[in-house]
């Protein structure tokens, strides 16, 4: 890579266009989650004789999930920095860490879902639980897609190295991953913190 002075540090036009497009996509995803939050808030008290949030949620468990996800965002940031400095080994390490943390988060979520289902509180139980599983599950689905995407990027970098394309894709992934973090903060507050009261 040639060195450029900060004054002329321009990303090339194609990349800028792609990133703008990706940001617009992120905004549409934001509205998707906003709709699901609205649905959750409407149905929150419709427990239809089933359990409510205070009976079902364990805050320490969710706090652990939250910390794991926040850490994975931090490591994905470190991976970005390493990639921009063309340090391929560091990029791999931090992306690997991001992947492992993301997968652990997902494992915890699946564990929680299964426990709820087995204790007789499934999405079939009530409007409240339908919206709970759908909102949190949609976030989980995004995490799953993110992990698949991450695997694809790792494979790509392994094959082709850190070129412009891989850095561009990594940037988008990073935006996506941070976004999921922000959404999770809202889930943590709206679903869990307000839910146990």
């Amino acid at each position, binding site marked *: 890579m040639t060195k450029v002075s900060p004054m002329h540090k321009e990303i090339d036009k194609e990349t800028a266009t792609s990133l703008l497009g990706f940001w617009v996509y992120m905004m*549409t995803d934001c509205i998707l989650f906003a709709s699901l939050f609205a649905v959750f808030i409407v149905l929150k008290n*419709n427990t239809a004789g089933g359990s409510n949030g205070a009976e079902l949620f364990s805050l320490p468990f969710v706090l652990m999930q939250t910390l794991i996800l926040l850490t994975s965002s931090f490591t994905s940031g470190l991976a970005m920095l390493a990639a921009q400095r063309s340090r391929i080994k560091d990029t791999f390490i931090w992306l690997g860490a991001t992947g492992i943390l993301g997968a652990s988060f997902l494992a915890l979520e699946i564990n929680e879902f299964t426990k709820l289902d087995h204790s007789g509180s499934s*999405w079939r139980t009530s*409007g409240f639980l*339908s919206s709970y599983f759908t909102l949190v599950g949609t976030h989980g689905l995004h995490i799953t897609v993110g992990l698949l995407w991450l695997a694809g990027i790792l494979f790509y970098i392994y094959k082709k190295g850190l070129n412009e394309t891989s850095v561009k894709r990594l940037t988008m992934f990073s935006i996506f991953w941070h976004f999921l973090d922000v959404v999770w903060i809202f889930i943590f507050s709206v679903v869990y913190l307000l839910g146990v009261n």
Partner: protein
Amino acid sequence: MLSIFSAAEVPGTDRMVLLFGQLMVVGAGLLIGLALIYFKKVGWLWKNWLTSVDHKKIGIMYLVVAGVMLLRGLADTVLLRFQQATSSGASHGIVSSDHFQQIFTAHGTMMIFFVAMGLVFGIINLIVPLQIGSRDVAFPLLNNLSFWMYAAGAILINLSLVFGGEFAATGWLAYPPLSELQFSPGVGVDYWIWSIQIAGIGTLLSGINFITTILTKRAPGMTMMKMPVFVWSVLAAMSLVAAAFPILTVTLVLLTLDRTIGTHFFTTTGGGNAMMYVNLIWAWGHPEVYILILPAFGIYSEIVATFSRKRLFGYASMVYAIIAITALSFVVWLHHFFTMGAGADVNAFFGIMTMVIAIPTGVKVFNWLFTMYRGRINFASPMIWFIGFVITFSIGGAAGVMLGVPPIDFQLHNTLFLVAHFHTMIVGGALFGYFAGIVYWFPKVFGFKLDEKLGKLAVYLWIAGFICAFTPLYILGLMGATRRLDHYDASLGWQGLFIVAGVGVLIIFAGVGVQLLMFYKSIRNRKKNIDKTGDPWNGRTLEWATSSPAPVYNFAAIPTVTDRDEFYRVKQLKLKLPKRKFSAIEMPNNSPFGIFMAGWALMFAFSVIWHFPPTIILAVLGIVITFLVRSFNDNTTYLISAAEVEAIENKRVGALL
């Protein structure tokens, strides 16, 4: 699984109508397939069209699919009108209640999602990159994928006729609890859900694509306030797409979950809330109305300026009106269900907001009229479409303001008055605009003009037929006729008006026939109507600055813009043709990515509808693998050398500069 192929017990005439539909779908598919093989055109079609990422070709493909769907939707109209004209008193018409419901549901769904949306995106694709002086859209491959998602939705809705033989009988927005499994156990609602879910995702991707295109791909010098009004209207409509379509996606997913895994979002039991669906679907649905009409406003703005040979009156106010309509369209959704019982304060708010939209819309109408004032108007057929639009749209708009008053709405809710109102807006407003746009830009796309004589005859037939078909519905609505009636008592005295409405539809049909004849005759006589200049109407904006049809790269040299009517300004300067130097142009490669992805999506949807997990898994795997394969393809562009560009440019029949 065998139930896929055999329709449930369907009685007499219904069976014939259904069989006819099945034969049409299967027959048309077979015929096209055989013709392609016979003329050895399969490879040509695949290479030059289906996998093309050229926005102009994608635009044409949108128009073709939308045209076919328009004919299908119109065929439904004939059945509906015939039923209502004959099913009075002792006679019960030709179709059963249940089948009648399926027909009006299919009619609404097809006309909105596959005709109106298809025409909008067709015209946007054809014109926006040319008007902003760009070589293509921001993401050409994504554009191809969007088209195929739309086409996959259209295929799925037609498959419902063949596999299963039933469609939703719920109305075009499938309100629960009727659309829940408990009351609609068949696959009809699932077909409805998935055909618009897939097409909707395609629309969303298109929206993202065009927002990015307009923001980043404009020619140098074209500031936001120098963009043609059509481009502004598209930017506004695409912002609405980006903001509203995710809500549709969520709503459809929730209904799917209710129907497939037993959640309780909109059910009558288990803490569901059916009115939440109605709120959600209209939070998408109202902006959708403006997604359809705003580009039509943009088209009229271009046409009125060109054919009045004047600069558009009040450009800035046009732009602000568009922005105002865009913002307001998100705070009026509740007027679709004032009768929900939200209370006087809420209804008053939404009622006032609804009426406020009439203000920016009125600004636009007056701007068009002032543009015409003291202009040298050329009454070509696009201009006549416009005049027809102003009249019908003003009537429909006034009816809309009436419906926006909650106490009046309480009386008119769910009557034919409402049906007449929204048809006035979508047919007399949006559809007339698309037709005008197609006639106006046809020479740009195909290189020859359409037959003006038949074109004008078509406009007059459409306007006359439209007025004849929908005025009776306003009256019937005021008399208390509810919408979606398949039978009424003879003593009500409605039959005469229903018959008049039926005659109106026949006149519209004649109009469509004349339009088809117009295309046929114009193509046959294309040598006579050839457009050598690239500028057949004395146009004002950049799309007319290149040849007709435009070369694959649109502009050999990207123009620099200094004026709103840039091309008109350049023409006034009467510049001599400068000796031009050409440089090589990089263009995106064609790719089958979009067609594969949409194919997997179609397989996914079809498998979910029929609850068949193996192919669901296969489709998901297919999507992942297709993505992976594409991401390793670094060879995504090709170069047109300077010599080739020069050869193409020299072949231009009449260079303008």
